[in-house]
């Protein structure tokens, strides 16, 4: 009896092994920290973020507001860079 054969296939995937990325440490306080609020341009996202902004300011946080050009596409690289360099934390608002 012949030896059973293995099957060798070509991998159809992107063959990515995503690099593990360490999470940034959780903020111990909001006082004095800068929190970015990202509006994804869905209707009424601004109403939600206005409320979040008021709550954050009550707790002593600085708040910066950002907005994606359209909710249907990923945030532009420049916008992501801006948020990453200016903020200690970011909150992204989904809304409808």
């Amino acid at each position, binding site marked *: 009896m012949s*030896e*059973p*054969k*293995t*099957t*060798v*296939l*070509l*991998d*159809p*995937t*992107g*063959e*990515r092994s995503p690099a593990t990325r360490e999470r940034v440490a959780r903020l111990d306080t909001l006082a004095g920290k800068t929190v970015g609020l990202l509006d994804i341009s869905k209707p009424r996202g601004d109403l939600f973020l206005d409320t979040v902004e008021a709550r954050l300011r009550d707790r002593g946080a600085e708040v910066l507001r950002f907005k994606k*050009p*359209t909710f*249907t*596409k*990923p945030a532009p690289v420049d916008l992501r860079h801006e948020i990453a360099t200016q903020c200690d934390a970011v909150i992204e608002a989904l809304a409808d």
Partner: protein
Amino acid sequence: MPDPLRPPLPDGIVAVVKRDCPTCALVAPVLVALAGQVKLTVFAQDDPSFPEGVDSVDDTNLDVSWHHGIEAVPTLLRVEGGVEVERALGWHRGDWEQLTGVSGLGENLPDWRPGCGSLSVDPDRAGDLAVRFGGSKLRSRRVEFAPLEDEFDAMVQRGWSDGLPLVPPTEKRVMAMLAGTTRSPDEVVAVVPPDLVPCSVEKVAINAVAAGCLPEYLPVVLAAVEAACTDEFNIHGLLATTMPTAPVVIVNGPIRRAIGMNSGKNVFGQGNRANSSIGRALQLIVRNVGGGRPGEVDRATFGNPGKLSFCFAEDEEGSPWQPLSVDLGAQPGVNTVTLFPGEGPRSIVDQLSRVPESLARSFAVNLRTLHHPKLLLAFDCLLAIGPEHARIFAEAGWDKAQLVARLHELLQIPGREFIRGAGGIAEGLPEHLADATLPKFKPDGILIVHCGGGAGLFSTMIGGWVGGEIGSQPVLREIGI
């Protein structure tokens, strides 16, 4: 760079033959005669005892034939210093005499006989030979399944499948698939969202094999991948949306017939390999290469069955109008794919209209309902007009532009009908638009394609997704080779 595995040719005259070829049998006495007069080496592809009277070299593994590009037998070569300097195909007395420098060859034979195909280019063997001799040009990771593992189950378990079994992408099948294009396997076709992974021709071919494509479909799949991954089409957003929309692939041009696509009966249904597998290949590439899987980045609330494959051809021959591709700027007769971000098809039945105005009104009242009758200007539509409906417009002399213009006129909606709360329905546009009149579709938001079976006074509408620059726009791409 010379291939180090390429077997050298001996100097002198080289003949490549097979016993199974009548022309080779015919010239066997010529080879016997030549062996006595020149330095002759005969390579036999199927039987080293052929021809009798000549000590042939066994090339049944086709090593020499494959590496030296033998396409027909008999092939006669003249080799000097290891380099081929002259070649003759089949039997042609004049060519053979010139190449060998020997006159009076085969005087009792006809002057000329064509040869047969070389075994090294036999379609049944070409894939194996390319894998065996070609040196692998393929860079993808090899995934080995154990002998007792069922590869069909294993592929599904690995997450490569849309839920249906896949054709196992062996190297042999992928090499055969790559014969469907002139593009290099390592050429990057597109960067595929959502993971933004550069996707090579090879990866497209692997997924095309898995989807069940034939090699001749590959150029269509390549063009569809290119179109999907443009910023205009925005496959990332289309994938991520909660709406039930996905790429709809429409094929125009002579390639539709060449690869046997369906544009007629049951055009959006099952049963045609090209229609079913081309759309499926695109979806598998988004899934496997781009990493876009349902429940993950694909957040569709319902989805639609077309997310397995929604691909069809336009019935250009039966259409009274120019094809969709020409509407979108392509030259007539050019092979194209058009991608439309569409939901599932919805039927429009009108079996009584016999004049264009009545039928246009039927279309309009149906089109108004796409996604919601009170939502305007947000979505494009693809209107697939069946042959029996198209004939009503054609017989009255309406061209496509006239129909589209009339549809826009009929789809001007007064604010009192669409504002929030109108009709007792909260959904709608803001109240401040109450005095406005707005169109259902933007000026370029109605696309028309002609397809479907010859019997049935029906058409079909396919609603779009968020249209225009902020969402997804129909994208046309020429199909290369």
